[in-house]
């Protein structure tokens, strides 16, 4: 009996082994590794370069958000009517008729591309933590994490400033609406973390410090400026002051860098590769004169007058890049932070420094006059960066500059861009009351 049992064991085990082998080969046969018409996410991020592609995806989506339909100007200087964009819907934007049925206006009202940036950033954060230890060096881990956080921060910051409300796209409270302050508070948190992680100067593929790469990716300077902007919006003036003061040290001078969007082809149509092209963006001679007094040297540096002197267009020095967070703003933010933290004298000095080329003397500015002067200089220096309308909101001057809106209108949300129907339908939100009745 024992012998029989033993015999059976000997006969059965190869059958089991064969079955296991067959099923194992089935598994290989049924998983196609070379799907060359599509790239599956699983198993893709096996090198620094591939992870970097995902990070760059965030920049491309940010570019899509800001450049589709010249959005960064539509939300900024086009909405205030200072810069003119040669598109059919521009008069509607400048006339604050933002709810008119128009396909391109509907595109502008949709925050989808900004949320794409947030999704991209969260994907990067997820995959760098999931990546094998030998895929990313500490430098790249910190860089990519910092970039993802900075991109996310910037996207939330834009959404909050444009629409005044921002549903969370974070896993913990997905879909929960945040008001403007809450969203910017969250954005500042991301920027703060990014600021700690990002390097001053980025390395290129040859692991050599590269100013060109640094200028089109988030770096510590850009994160500091972004965080300072967010802090000033929130009233965290002291932190803003400290950040800007850190940039102002002489030791830092060689490390500072602008940040802007690099140009390139987008897979989707409608994303311009020449954002400030003279045929698209211009300023009328009247607006130009209103912004820059006679003798202001910056006018000639930034703009070129047309032959008939009826309008002026941007002098584009770098066709490959659109500046967003520039060192130019550093002194302005420094001045503002100093002014808001009670350091008027220092604020005057920084404003004078910032307004190099201007005609006005800011050495005698009073506390009461300082805000208006700062707003004017921000307008002159940052024109074309898309920040103008946000500045008017932040300084509470929208109705002063755009008389079409009363104070009551502003309270009813007129300074916010109307929410797209898609945003309302899909996310359980209600329209700003001003736009509901428009």
């Amino acid at each position, binding site marked *: 009996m024992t012998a029989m049992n033993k015999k059976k064991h000997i006969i059965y085990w190869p059958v089991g082994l064969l079955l296991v082998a067959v099923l194992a080969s089935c598994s290989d*046969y*049924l998983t*196609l590794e070379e*799907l060359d*018409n599509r790239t599956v996410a699983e198993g893709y991020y096996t090198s620094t370069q591939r992870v970097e*592609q995902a990070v*760059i995806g965030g920049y491309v989506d940010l570019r899509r958000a800001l450049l589709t339909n010249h959005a960064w100007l539509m939300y900024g200087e086009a909405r205030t009517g200072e810069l003119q964009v040669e598109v059919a819907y521009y008069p509607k934007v400048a006339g604050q008729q933002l709810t008119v049925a128009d396909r391109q206006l509907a595109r502008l009202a949709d925050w989808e591309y900004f949320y794409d*940036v947030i999704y*991209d950033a969260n994907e990067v954060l997820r995959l760098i933590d999931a990546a094998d230890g030998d895929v990313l060096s500490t430098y790249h881990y910190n860089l990519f994490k910092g970039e993802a956080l900075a991109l996310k921060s910037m996207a939330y910051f834009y959404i909050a400033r444009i629409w005044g409300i921002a549903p969370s*796209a974070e896993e913990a409270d997905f879909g929960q609406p945040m008001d403007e302050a809450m969203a910017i508070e969250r954005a500042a948190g991301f920027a703060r973390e990014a600021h700690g992680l990002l390097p001053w100067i980025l390395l290129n593929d040859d692991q050599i410090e590269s100013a060109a790469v640094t200028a089109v990716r988030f770096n510590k300077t850009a994160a500091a400026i972004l965080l300072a902007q967010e802090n000033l919006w929130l009233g965290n003036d002291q932190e803003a002051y400290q950040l800007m003061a850190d940039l102002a040290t002489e030791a830092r001078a060689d490390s500072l860098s602008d940040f802007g969007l690099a140009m390139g082809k987008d897979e989707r149509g409608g994303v311009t590769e020449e954002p400030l092209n003279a045929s698209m963006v211009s300023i009328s001679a009247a607006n130009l004169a209103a912004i820059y007094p006679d003798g202001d040297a910056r006018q000639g540096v930034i703009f070129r007058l047309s032959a008939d002197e009826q309008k002026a267009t941007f002098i584009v020095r770098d066709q490959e890049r659109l500046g967003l967070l520039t060192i130019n703003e550093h002194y302005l933010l420094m001045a503002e932070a100093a002014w808001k933290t009670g350091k008027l004298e220092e604020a005057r000095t920084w404003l004078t420094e910032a307004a190099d080329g201007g005609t006005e003397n800011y050495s005698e500015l009073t506390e009461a006059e300082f805000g208006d002067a700062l707003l004017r200089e921000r307008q002159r220096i940052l024109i074309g960066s898309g920040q103008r309308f946000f500045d008017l909101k932040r300084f509470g001057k929208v109705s002063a500059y755009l008389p079409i809106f009363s104070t009551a209108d502003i309270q009813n949300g007129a300074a916010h861009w109307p929410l797209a129907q898609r945003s309302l339908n899909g996310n359980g939100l209600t329209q700003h009351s001003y736009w509901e009745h428009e």
Partner: protein
Amino acid sequence: MEQVTLGIRMMDLLPKFFWRAIFCVILLPAGLVHVSAQEVVQVDSVLWPVRNGVESLLQGSTAGLRVKSWSGEAGIQSIINLRGLSMDPTDESTMPMILVNGVPIVATPSSVTAINPLSYYTPDQIERIEIIKSIDQLAAYGVLAANGAINIVLKEGRSGPLHVTASAFAGTNYLNDFNYRKDAFYDFNTTARRKVYRPQITHSQQAIIDGGGDFGSYLFGVTNYQDNGAVAESKFTQQSLFLNATYHISKQLKAQFYSNLTLANRKGRYAGGYERGLARPVLSDETFFMDDNKNTAQLSSLRLSYQLAPAWSVSSLAGISYEGAKRDFFIPSDVLDGYVRAASAAVRRQLISVNTAVEYRHRFSDRLGLSMTLGNEVRMTDNRITSVDGSRSLEYGGSNFVKVVTGYNANQTDALSGHDQENLLSFYGLWNVDFNPDLKLNATLRADASSLYDQKWGFYPAAGASYSFKSTLQLPLTVSASVGKTGILSRPEVYRGELTAFGDYFSGNELGIGKLYAAFEGAKSIDVFQIDGGISYAFKDALVLSVNYFDKRYSDFTYRRYLPNIYGIDYRYETGGKLALSGVEVELDGTLIQNDRFQWTTNINLASYSNAVNALPEDPANTSFAYLQALQSGDALTSIIATEGQQARVIGNSEASLFGGVTNTFRYKGFTLGLGINYALNADVAAESFSSRYSASQVGGFFPLKTAETPYYFVEEDADGGTVYQGIRSIENGSFIRLGRAVLSYQFGSFLQGLPIRQAELFVRGDNLLTLSAYSGFNPEENITGIRRTDLFSTGMPLPSSVVLGLKLVL
């Protein structure tokens, strides 16, 4: 002796209770020897059409098989539906599975040339066609044949040293009673269209040599076929070379080899055949236009079968079905107002399959028999498309053609390469038991694993029974019933998610990528549950009336869910949705009169079907099924949906509720007259209006009603994304009855005495000779979606009639 020993050892390998379990649980209640067809069409006994394509041969011949002649273009496949339904109107998922000698083939037309792969097999090659539609037989194909299966069984060589069969025909295509006002192109460059339609020739030549003996058999042949349609300067040509050979290597071992190489070429020279929306005025007759489509197709199969023991046999069938399709396309500058456009595309499709089975047959007694087949099937599908498409404005000098060739450059050319692969692994078991001769029980169990899914395996069981009252009640009555499950593969693979390129960054030095959609681990095949019931009554041995009922329930379609705009990706995949298709099929088939001089055989069949959407996913408006959102549970999937006022409404049904055919063949002495009629009743056609088309913004969002037209309109989007209201002129009844085929032939019997000719037949054949319909257009079946659109999208070219005179000789 060795085999017996082997058998004993195999029995010893597993404990006795295992064998008892096999017999008690699996074998006794079930069984199926082969996947035998529910209906068999003997090809030599049906009327052969002039137009090639196996589906033309089957039109109107079998209850439940709908073959829609939607386009008159030569070489185009008619729509084939065998109890098929799908929620996705853009894929090929309602097409039945097509096999040749049991080998699955690439059967759908390629997306670039649209040449019909079923045209590669001429009626002379085919012995019979098995139409498989009941669930107990379909389940043997698992996820491959939920919409039925058609197996084309090819002729083998006849016994004898040598037979030579030669046949040829020639004739003309013409547009019968053509009235340009009835043409679907009416009101679009009518003058040009009148000029472009003209009688054209069609002809065919074929030679087959066959023979057979103890060694096996052979059959090989060559075919040349040309059909110029009914449009000037267009034509379809096809040449095939085929071989079907069996060889008895030993008493136990038999090999069968089949090979068919086909070259097919379809030329279009007609601008309207491609782009019906060209701005007027275009060319006076629109004929100078190049659309050159070439297919090269090969089907090779090898079957090896070995008789292990009297009861045991093993067989393996390997097949390669390959098709290369290439299209070159050119529109000259005088059509495109100073621009030339050229495009080139190539598709390569291949399907490799290996099917190995062990078969066991045993008769326990005269009253009890059993057969069992256990098998494994491996399928590899690999399809690739590459295309370039460019245009440029003309410069001075040179010919148009030279300009377009030199005009290709990176900025003016779109290039595309796509690749689809899928592997399928299957195991199946078929069991058949017969008690007395009256009761037959069968069961099927198939397991399919596809590379398309994370959860690989799907299981497809079925069981059926039939009982004959012939011996018990002396009634020639048989009843049958079956129940089971099949599936339909969802395409493409989505369970691993997909990354996509967003764009270049930093002067094109960096590539930005991101997620197109997230992994959908729940991806699975569509489930199809089916029940069948049938009854057949043989009036005489030669005339059988059968009535069959079926009910199919489809569930778990894969669709896209469009996400709210804070998700960061546009959509994700989900499964859901339920459909139902049921119907009754009635068929009378057999010989009505048979005597020495006269024979009358008939086949009368009709099918009455209804389909319904039983459930849609939640919030269908935000899914890829949004076009169905107006449907209520129970509404037909094939409903035509339009808008009235601001409300979506069902205004018709594009599918016929009743369809079928009537075939009568009369033989008197050497004469044969065959008439084949097919019909479809109660399909609606919504004809769009040429004069009521409005931009929504121009009419303030309200569709202006027009007298003499319906109050309904479609809401569409123009090229700029603006909303357009397209009025509907009429809703027409698309019912028709058509004399689809007619044959008159004469067999020269006594005249051949003394000649080295065994058989000679002179014949006249006609296709599409007469159509009775109230439909205002030319062909009631020409609108694929049941909508006759103003741009004629999804509308076929006018269907010509054909008459040929031919001769067939057997030496």
